[in-house]
């Protein structure tokens, strides 16, 4: 028992003392619950007991007094010897106390001796004219156990204890406990519920009648009471799966009490308009709050305790309406029409359009103008924009933060703009207002040149052509651009207006330019990364840290031209001290290909040119995947590391845990290529490559699968260092020996057998040089060792140290 039981114990003892003085002879069983002695206190005690009971199904319920198992008391030493009687049999005046739960367990000890029908008939006869439905009747050991869901019946049965004499002469003992059957909602039960619900569903009215659900004859086997949240939630899931457009739900007479879990109704059943909750146990109007977001037009609440709390029916109606303003019918009665406010709350915004053109004739001109303008604007130098501005052009820029934008990252800071912002709400000085308006094309272009370098997403522009006359064009743009040279490459949202006039040379120039810059909203960012047709991709957790770079150093491109999808997750890129196009992570899926890079870590320092390129191309239908790619490169000079993964057609491949560590290399040193030209697939797992001090094309790991082939390398470790002199001398000089007929016996002829292959001749020479033996003996030695130079040398050394080689062997 929890500690709290101690408190109860003290109460109980005090009660006990009390009864010892006053009451013992007449009603000793009262001690536990003291019915009748003090109404208020009794209530309190009952509440306490039931509250405990809710926590622990095993705790004996108050109503049965001393009859049931006395766990609470037995749990404490010494209580067994308490003056409380261990059994109350024979004591006539028992008081039934209603419990908090709507269900009562009826235990008939030794009920197993009789047929179910005999027991039930005896009980029914006894409490006649009342009738009851025994739920879930079962034999448990010697006892028969069943449940009733009616407090009145429970009380009658309670009083039937030891009143009925059975055929065997014993009195029928009846124990009543306020408890609910335990039940697990499994697939089997859900299936049964579904069938019953299907039976109770009216497709014509989209109405589901779950009145007294647990009493459905088809559910007699299982305890399926909707007042239990787990069962109600299962029921709602079944409804949402099978009749998501349900409009009316009848939950009358289901002993519902708390409705907190019904909150999900508003998300699961969006069309629900009619809800019947009559004859339940809903205690307060406030208990309905979880249902407030349902747009109910009809509600039935009669038969709930909450109604008793209202003396005035009008106040009741008005309070219910406050919670459900759209209600037109309550408790089966049409409500007088509510007088509301015509605030047109259902009005929606008109759909937005990508562009508006006052004159379609202007489309090409505008497109051409903007394409040219932003091509220069996004280039290295904005100076050529001088041509695009009128001699007396004016330009102003204003910038501001988004409201309630909690992002406080370096990338979202607009300092570079705000310091030049001509927001006249803030800039109130006449002089300042004049100064912040850039006038004349020189001033304008010089100002524009100082703005961060950008790349505009021209395809994503929303362009409105407002004025299109021979003398004047006014157009506004809304769109996004990326700052290419700012750490983190932040994306900004802008709104810009051009007033364009014809210039003397037959072209056009801008006379008014007004720019507003702000950060992108979450919405804008999420759509910004998009695929041109049907493709989708996703970059999650891309961290990029770049320092001291000068030119387009880092480009992370993700293109899915048609139907391709790819995904970069946890891409970390750390680059320092690089000078040119150093790192490019490209992921292209040209058609239908999909790929995925997970956990790509790239660390590059002190490199000078096109050093690291991680390319992943899936040209058609190919898919590939790089997981945990770690690349660490230092002090390299040229095209050092290239990790390419191409799947030209239908091929798929996968690199997992690729670690590459390269130092002090000079040229094309490491190339890990994985090509699957057609239908091939391959897989590299746990490739570790460590390279030092190499000079040229040193290491190349190539994996080609030209047609339909598949292969797989698992756990490849490579360690490379400088070669020794011997290695250089011996390596690459000869291939594997060919199978040639060995010369049978050593012949005295010193001339080498001309049938020797070059390879063998070379081995012969090498052995001769290294051992000093003559050709004949060398040949002998090699032939005996199967033309294995190493073995031949080994044997020579061994024999010589033993002095077994005759001196004539060295005579040439």
């Amino acid at each position: 028992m929890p500690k709290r039981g101690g408190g109860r114990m003290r109460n109980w003892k005090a009660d006990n003392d009390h009864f010892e003085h006053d009451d013992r002879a007449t009603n000793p069983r009262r001690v536990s619950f003291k019915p009748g002695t003090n109404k208020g206190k009794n209530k309190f005690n009952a509440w306490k007991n039931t509250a405990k009971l809710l926590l622990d199904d095993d705790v004996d319920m108050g109503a049965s007094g001393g009859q049931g198992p006395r766990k609470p008391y037995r749990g404490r030493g010494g209580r067994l010897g308490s003056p409380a009687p261990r059994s109350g049999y024979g004591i006539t005046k028992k008081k039934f106390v209603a419990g908090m739960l709507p269900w009562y367990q009826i235990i008939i000890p030794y009920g197993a001796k009789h047929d179910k029908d005999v027991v039930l008939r005896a009980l029914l006869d006894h409490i006649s004219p009342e009738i009851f439905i025994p739920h879930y009747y079962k034999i448990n050991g010697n006892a028969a156990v069943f449940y009733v869901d009616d407090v009145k019946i429970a009380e009658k049965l309670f009083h039937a204890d030891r009143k009925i004499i059975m055929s065997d002469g014993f009195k029928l003992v009846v124990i009543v406990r306020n408890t609910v059957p335990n039940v697990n909602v499994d697939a089997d039960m859900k299936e049964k519920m579904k069938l019953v619900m299907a039976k109770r569903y009216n497709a014509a009215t989209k109405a589901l009648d779950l009145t007294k659900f647990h009493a459905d004859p088809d559910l007699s086997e299982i305890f399926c009471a909707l007042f239990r949240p787990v069962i109600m939630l299962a029921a709602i899931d079944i409804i949402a799966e099978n009749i998501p457009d349900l409009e009316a739900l009848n939950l009358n007479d289901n002993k519902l009490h708390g409705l907190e879990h019904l909150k999900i109704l508003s998300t699961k059943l969006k069309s629900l308009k009619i809800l019947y909750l009559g004859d339940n146990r809903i205690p307060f109007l406030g208990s309905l709050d979880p249902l407030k977001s349902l747009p109910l037009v009809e509600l039935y609440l009669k038969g709930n305790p909450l109604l008793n709390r209202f003396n005035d029916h009008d106040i009741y109606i008005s309070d219910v309406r406050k919670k459900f303003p759209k209600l037109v019918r309550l408790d089966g009665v049409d409500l007088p029409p509510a007088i509301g406010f015509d605030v047109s709350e259902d009005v929606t915004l008109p759909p937005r359009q990508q562009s508006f053109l006052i004159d379609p004739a202007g489309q090409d001109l505008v497109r051409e103008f903007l394409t040219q303008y932003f091509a220069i604007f996004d280039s290295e130098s904005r100076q050529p924009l001088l041509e695009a501005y009128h001699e007396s052009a004016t330009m102003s820029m204003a910038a501001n933060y988004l409201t309630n934008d909690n992002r406080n990252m370096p990338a979202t800071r607009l300092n570079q703009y705000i310091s030049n912002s001509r927001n006249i709400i803030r800039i109130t000085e006449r002089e300042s207002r004049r100064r912040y308006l850039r006038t004349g094309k020189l001033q304008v272009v010089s100002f524009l040149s100082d703005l961060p370098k950008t790349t505009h997403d021209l395809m994503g522009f929303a362009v409105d052509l407002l004025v299109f006359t021979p003398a004047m064009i006014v157009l506004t743009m809304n769109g996004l651009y990326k700052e290419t040279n700012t750490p983190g490459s932040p994306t900004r949202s802008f709104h810009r207006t051009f007033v364009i006039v014809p210039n003397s040379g037959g072209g056009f120039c801008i006379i008014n330019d007004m720019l507003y810059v702000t950060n992108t909203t979450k919405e804008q960012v999420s759509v910004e990364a998009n695929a041109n047709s049907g493709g989708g991709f996703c970059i999650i957790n891309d961290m990029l840290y770049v320092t001291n770079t000068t030119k387009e150093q880092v480009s992370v491109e993700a293109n899915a031209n048609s139907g391709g999808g790819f995904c970069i997750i946890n891409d970390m890129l750390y680059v320092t001290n690089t000078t040119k196009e150093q790192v490019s992570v490209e992921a292209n899926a040209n058609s239908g290909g999909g790929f995925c890079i997970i956990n790509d870590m790239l660390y590059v320092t002190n490199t000078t040119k096109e050093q690291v390129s991680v390319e992943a191309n899936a040209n058609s239908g190919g898919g590939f995947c790089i997981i945990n790619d770690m690349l660490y490169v230092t002090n390299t000079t040229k095209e050092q590391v290239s990790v390419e993964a191409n799947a030209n057609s239908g091929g798929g491949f996968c690199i997992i845990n690729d670690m590459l560590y390269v130092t002090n290399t000079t040229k094309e040193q490491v190339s890990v290529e994985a090509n699957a030209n057609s239908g091939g697939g391959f897989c590299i797992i746990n490739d570790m490559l460590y390279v030092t001090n190499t000079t040229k094309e040193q290491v190349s790991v190539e994996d080609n699968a030209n047609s339909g082939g598949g292969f797989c390398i698992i756990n490849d470790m490579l360690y490379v260092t400088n070669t020794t002199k011997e290695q250089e001398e011996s390596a690459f000089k000869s291939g594997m020996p060919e199978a040639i007929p060995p010369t049978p016996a050593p012949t005295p002829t010193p001339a080498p057998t001309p049938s020797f292959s070059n390879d063998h001749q070379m081995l012969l020479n090498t052995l001769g040089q290294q051992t000093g033996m003559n050709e004949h003996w060398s040949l002998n030695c090699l032939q005996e060792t199967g033309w294995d130079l190493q073995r031949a040398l080994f044997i020579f050394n061994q024999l010589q140290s033993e002095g077994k080689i005759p001196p004539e062997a060295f005579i040439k």
Partner: protein
Amino acid sequence: MSTEVVLKNVDNACETAEEFTRVFYKQVDNSRHLTSKLYLDTGLLVWNGNGINGNDKIQKFLMDLPGSNHVLKTLDAQPISENLVSNKLTYLIQACGDVTYQNDNIKKPFQQTFLIVAVDGKWKIASDCFRLQVPYNS
């Protein structure tokens, strides 16, 4: 035009923009039925890419929008060279801030550009381009 006149015109554009936006958003938010009076008879409203031509149609379009509350955060204004616009005083005004519509009560950033022109002693909107800051490249 002398430099002094040009600069005075710049000052005037700013002051007019302040006054104009005060009136305009008050009308749109509180007295929308009167808003179309601020437009030229041949005025143009481009609302999120939906073009509405003419004072009457603009009035009807505005009346169909949910109730609104605009909060102005950023304002900018420039004068337009008068010889472009038949020597009528014309200003370009850019107003940015947040708007809340009653249908969803969500604050949305918006940007709006007006061309206003002085006609018979009254400022009238020749064109009004309104854009919510939402993704357009989808």
